[in-house]
């Protein structure tokens, strides 16, 4: 276990805060928009990693918490006129509670059955929300422009959203590091290696799995609210994209599952690569195919991801790369 005073513990959090501060100081709208998306994916990938990387449970529909939390927070802002930070917090709490309830049922499934169940949960949530009138049914909801007045105009509201996003993502990374370095986290890693053995050794697996599931659902809920507030509208097609769920898995795998720094590196690399390909005339039509080929190569030849590969080749870096 790594102690809190070692470099590896603080490095990912420090990177996130420094990155956010640099964009804030620059004050350019274009740079902020670019960083917003990247930081959002870092936050989502890090929270997925708490479940996927530590307990080894493959959640294929993790984006459901982004959607449900986002819908809840958005509803509170649009209909009940809550302020953004409170609504975002509520979105996260609702996501975590839903995860807690769902976990009672689906966390008893293992391996591929769990993965299938999470796909089912996402599709069920999407089709339910599409029919749920209070949430606007299939057309979704949108914010009245006057909402932005209480934050001092739309421009300031966007900067506020950005600052909150940086704070939330930094906390997600911090929580991920804290869990990994705790006794609780050790229990999760034991579940990943062999759940039955962990149970015999005194890890209370149902409780540990549920807490991990709730923790990994909380941050997507908050991030969802921030994202849809920035967009100004929310609809089922945007909120529950199975595709995005799988892209998150790719980011975690690319960076290195079960590491704190991995999701950060993976999200930035994947998004950077996608952004480059979408704009280059050569790869524009083939970006999905190229991303697939890259994913295939990683899965087949570098299953430990970027961080795992670096740790293997440069033993000295092991202290710094958590």
């Amino acid at each position, binding site marked *: 276990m790594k102690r809190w005073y070692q470099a590896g513990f603080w490095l990912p959090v420090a990177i996130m805060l420094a990155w956010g501060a640099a964009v804030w100081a620059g004050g350019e709208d274009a740079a902020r928009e670019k960083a917003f998306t990247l930081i959002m994916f870092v936050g989502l990938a890090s929270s997925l990693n708490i479940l996927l990387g530590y307990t080894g449970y493959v959640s294929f529909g993790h984006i459901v918490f982004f959607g449900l939390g986002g819908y809840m927070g958005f509803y509170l802002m649009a209909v009940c006129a809550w302020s953004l930070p409170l609504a975002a917090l509520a979105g996260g709490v609702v996501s975590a509670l839903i995860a807690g309830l769902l976990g009672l049922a*689906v966390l008893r499934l293992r391996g*591929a059955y769990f*993965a*299938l169940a999470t796909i089912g949960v996402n599709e069920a949530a999407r089709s339910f929300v599409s029919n749920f009138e209070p949430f606007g049914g299939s057309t979704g909801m949108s914010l009245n422009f006057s909402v932005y007045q209480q934050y001092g105009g739309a421009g300031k509201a966007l900067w506020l959203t950005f600052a909150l996003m940086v704070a939330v993502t930094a906390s997600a990374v911090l929580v991920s590091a804290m869990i990994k370095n705790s006794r609780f986290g050790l229990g999760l890693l034991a579940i990943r290696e062999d759940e039955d053995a962990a149970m015999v050794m005194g890890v209370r697996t149902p409780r540990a799995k549920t807490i991990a599931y709730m923790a990994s659902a909380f941050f997507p809920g908050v991030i969802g609210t921030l994202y849809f507030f920035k967009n100004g509208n929310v609809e089922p097609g945007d909120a529950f994209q199975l595709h995005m769920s799988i892209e998150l898995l790719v980011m975690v795998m690319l960076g290195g599952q079960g590491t704190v720094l991995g999701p950060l590196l993976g999200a930035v690399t994947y998004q950077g690569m996608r952004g480059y390909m979408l704009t280059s005339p050569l790869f524009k039509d*083939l970006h999905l195919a190229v*991303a*697939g*080929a890259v994913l295939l190569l990683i899965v*087949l030849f570098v*299953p430990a991801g970027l961080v795992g590969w670096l740790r293997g080749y440069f033993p000295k870096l092991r202290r710094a790369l958590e």
Partner: protein
Amino acid sequence: MRILISLLDGLLIGFVYGLSAMGLSLIWGVMKVINLSHGAVMALGMFFSYAAISRFHPGLALPAVAVFGMLLGLLIYGVAVHRVISAPHLSSLLATFAVNMIIIGVGTAVFSTSPRNIDYSAGTMVLGDIRLPGTRLLAAGASILVTAVLYYFLYRTRSGKAIRAVANNRMAAGLMGISPTRSLALSFSIGTGLAALAGGLVATMFPFTILSGSTYEVKSFVICVLGGLGNPLGALLGGLILGGIEGVVPTFMPVSWVPVLEFGLFILVLVLRPGGLLGEK
């Protein structure tokens, strides 16, 4: 009466759903891999049958679709699946999903995402008040035929028995002189062949795009879970249940509630009876 017609209509489509799910189920049963490229292969099957039916008789075109699917399956198995067959689930899930992305990516670039429709009609069968489109009867009939052939193959031929032995215990089968790699590759290729054929049959009934496969893939997951993962006959039953739901429910509820029911049932069965409706508890 209206309900009966809708039910019949739904059940006929259900046979095709069952056929598609059978491919997924076979692959899971033999190699414990969830094939996430299933939908993409179905979509390719749709395009292949689009090209083939306009030139040849369906009796020639549809077997060609199946053979195309099987060859594609061999390729996918060799490139993507073989290396991760003993790795944790995440690896095989992601490897097959990567194949899915490659197929959809190239397919979008080549075919674009505009919808297509096969202009083929097999007449209409009239039984009193009931009118059934010939393409649906044809598709259901083909599905039943293929199921029968698959069962004959798995239970009566040497290669089929080898596949079942490998599904039962890969290592023991290897020690008995069966080549596990051959059986695994063969079953993967049969699984994708079924997917392509089901795609080809679906294409005779509904318009499609290169992205249509994913809808049917998710349906196949639901069906596999209803019937029990790894149980091909259960998959056919699950297909009929799903087809029945899709046929009957819209007669008394808005169509948009159908997926809510389907996925609710899916999660319920997965949690309460993970072995499927036919399986042991």
